[in-house]
């Protein structure tokens, strides 16, 4: 979305990047249970950051808190210099934080077109150029343009959910398990698309269980375990890390 976001210098120039999202000592509780126990991480402008972890580690909770669907019990979330913790999602989206919730969540009885238009709900008048741009990115959606979203395949629905988020002109895209329940080939496509989106200057906070692919894609990664950060590093470092390989990639440790 080149016109939506000042184009960043692309991948690689980590040092010169501006900090976009800064999460400090975040704590989230569900009643008496503390799901997130004081984690800190950040996403720089133009980065892809992966949050990894097993089931119940708190990845989705973290992301829901960032997107405003949950309120933090303690800690701060800063986006582009503004405190955003406690801001509800419908206001947060006006700052350019778009969330693709876990489990796709398209509007099943709306057409693909209407779904995409709903993505631009925050603008009074829908942006036709942006629609064309998104459709160029997802040729499959173009084919299914007048079809009901509920009739799409899982992969197409995931593409639609991402496309819909793009219609909100995000600066930071929160992707929650885009690979969930999809065939490996489709997952590959989705990750290609995420890379493309990032190349257009959109920062991405990616929650994944599919550690290998996520880390191949991401600039940096964080590993969550029962609400705490246990590892952080660049994608390549983490991919090479023995503990990661043992825990998430299912590889036998040599020796």
């Amino acid at each position, binding site marked *: 979305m080149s016109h939506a976001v000042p184009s960043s210098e692309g991948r690689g120039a980590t040092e010169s990047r501006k900090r976009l999202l800064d999460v400090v000592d975040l704590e989230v509780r569900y009643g008496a249970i503390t799901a997130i126990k004081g984690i800190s991480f950040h996403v720089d402008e133009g980065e892809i950051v992966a949050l990894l972890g097993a089931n119940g580690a708190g990845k989705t909770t973290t992301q829901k808190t960032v*997107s405003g*669907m949950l309120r933090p019990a303690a800690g701060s979330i800063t986006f582009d210099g503004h405190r955003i913790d406690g801001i*509800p*999602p*419908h206001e947060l*989206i*006006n700052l350019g934080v*778009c*969330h*693709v*919730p876990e489990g796709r*969540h*398209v*509007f*099943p*009885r*709306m*057409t693909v*077109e*209407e779904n995409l*238009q*709903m*993505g631009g*709900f*925050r603008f*009074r*008048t*829908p942006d*036709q150029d942006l*629609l064309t741009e998104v*459709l160029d990115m997802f040729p499959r959606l*173009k084919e299914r*343009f*007048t*079809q*009901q979203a*509920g*009739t799409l395949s899982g992969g197409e629905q995931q593409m639609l*959910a991402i496309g*819909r*988020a793009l219609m*909100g002109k995000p600066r930071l895209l929160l992707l929650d398990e885009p690979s969930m329940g999809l065939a490996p080939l489709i997952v590959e496509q989705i990750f290609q698309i995420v890379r493309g989106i990032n190349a257009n200057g959109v920062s991405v906070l990616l929650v994944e269980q599919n550690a290998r692919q996520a880390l191949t894609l991401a600039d940096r990664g964080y590993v969550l375990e029962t609400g705490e950060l246990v590892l952080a590093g660049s994608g390549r470092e983490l991919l090479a890390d023995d503990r990661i390989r043992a825990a998430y990639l299912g590889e036998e440790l040599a020796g």
Partner: protein
Amino acid sequence: MNRRVSLPPWVGRLLACLGGSVVLAMMVGKQQGSKDDYGLAFREAVLNPRIFYFLLVGVLVFLGITYQDVVRRYAGRPGVRPLLAGVLILLASYFLMKWYDPLGDGKLATFGAAVTSTPAVAPVARIFFGWLWWVGLLVTAAATAAAIVWRLRWLAWASAAVSVLVGAIAVAAHSLAVSFAGGIDHSFGAQTALIGNLVLAGAGVVAAMSRVETARTREFVERVMAFRPGLPLVAMGVVLGVLALVAATWFDPGGKNLTLVDTQHLFAGSALSGVASAYLAWLGYAVFAVVVVLAATAVWTAQKTLGYVAAGGAVVAILVTLATLHDISATATKAGYPGSAGEWQNLGTGGWVLCIALFSAGAGGLIAARRAPVIAPEPALARGSGALGRLHQVGTSTTLLSLTLFGVGLALFYPPTATAFWQQALVTDIGVYVLLAIGLNVVIGWAGLLDLGYIAFYALGSYTTAYFTGSLPVQPPIHLSPLWAIPVAIAVCLIAGVVLGGPTLRLRGDYLAIVTLGFGEIIRIIAVNNPGDFTNGPRGVARAVPHPVIDLGFIRFEWGGSQLQYWYLLLVLLALVFLLFWRLEGSRLGRAWAAVREDEVAAQATGVNTTRVKLLAFAIGASTSGLAGVFFASQVGYFNPQNFILNNSILVVAFVVFGGMGSLTGAIAGAAVLTWLPDFLRDQVPSEDRIMWIGAVLIVMMIFRPAGLIPARRRKAELTGLAGHDPSVDQDLRAVPAGEGV
């Protein structure tokens, strides 16, 4: 080991079918017995010859189920549906409708027996009432069916011709017999028989001309409607108008049915105004001809200006007709014609039907002028403009619009011709519930919130009106007329909606339903308990709520003279609410509602303030209910907490679901049909059974048409595939899960 004897499956099926028909036969029959009549009623019901008809139907159903593969192969063929429709219409005409009012129950059997036993009646009538009616039905139905099955084109044509002939004979025989017997006859049996026969003939023509294997009724209808937008309305106007001008009664003092020509003779040389005399002599025909020609030309050439001119002409023509009607009745009363009962009285159906005809023709012209969008075959992307603006239009053809406009014409000009009973039913049963259903449709259909306490807001509106008109024991600070109470009641219900909705709307589905149900009961019980002597408890209001009054100084109008006045007030309210909601549905808020209903998480993710949007739906629905409450209170005058029981809340939910959740026209149709039905059944089935029949209708409807009478576009698409594009994909899409409902 005990080994169960297993019967072949068809035995159970046959027994079920026969048992079902016995039950149905008893349901339909007279049930005058009591628990200590020693089974007399049962015996009467069972021994009645009617039971054999029902057993025959049971056998047919059994055969249909057993050989459903064969049936299915033929059931889809072109002509089958009109064949069934024609047979049903004819059956209704022969067994349900009246053929001659002065005689006993006036049905065909009674009248026919009298005619055939009178040798002096014209032979055509004796033949028709003797055997031709049922022989004609059997022969033409069987011949058309055979023509469809074996694709015999000549037989289909022949059968169509015979049907037309039988229909014409039916009307001729009826009018001969009636003119022989004399007396006033308002029955529609013969006309219905003509319509049924014409539909049967249509089935024959379709069977003879169609070359496709499976009928595509919807496509066919759409093609007809899209041929020249507005043409069907104009055609309808022509037919009705000619009937009104030539055959219908224009003035019926003391039981004389005078047609337009007769009326002209009657008023020749009277004090009738110039315009009215001219109208009776030639102007009536002239304005009708002008409007019809204008509309037809506009429709045929798709001329914008001409269409508007035709619509304007229709309005003028209707006004002239109404002026004439008023003048006729007023002059007759002033001159003391025998049987004249006052202004707007004794006007048969002619003038009103002509108004409907003119309205229909004008509406046709308007459609031609507006060129309502037709389903576009090309993908939506190819059409340039903003997609969201079109949300309304996709899939909207002129069919629904035409039907709606015709319905408006009927709503405007039919009620004056109805009996007092039906006028009362229209206002108190049908109209108010239509308003309630439109309001609840916002909550249930659009925002997807199940509200089971909807009637509570109706109660709030009613009691607010009663309070501010000084009809409760506690006097208000300022007295208001019921019309001024409308904004107050709306405000009260709006606030009540927000107060109830604020804390509860985070609940979903079943939980919200329970909370609202509790709220509804709380409001009713508060009204019963009479806190602070405010509501006057179960006795209801202390003094009658006054009728609304419009007082502008120079002109003063008070409602209450007749139910008709309330009907027109209700029409105005309905129109306002309808227009408002129709705009809302396509608005940004409407889209937000749709999003929340479809998927709340996704709605939140796309930037919809879900709490606010849901609260708005709740409050808007509540205030509509409050508006209905104001109307109700001032119309009935006296009411008590019994009017606001849970049952009524459930009824309104049923209306919305029956009509088609999320569809504005559907909510109207659902409420209208389901409130009309009990009153209609009053004369047709034993009164204790009425509710059972309504239940049966609901069940059948939900099985065969779960999306409702007039489904919302989304639900329709969900159940039958995409906005009618490619029929071949329908089958696959049926497999899509239906979602969570409400």
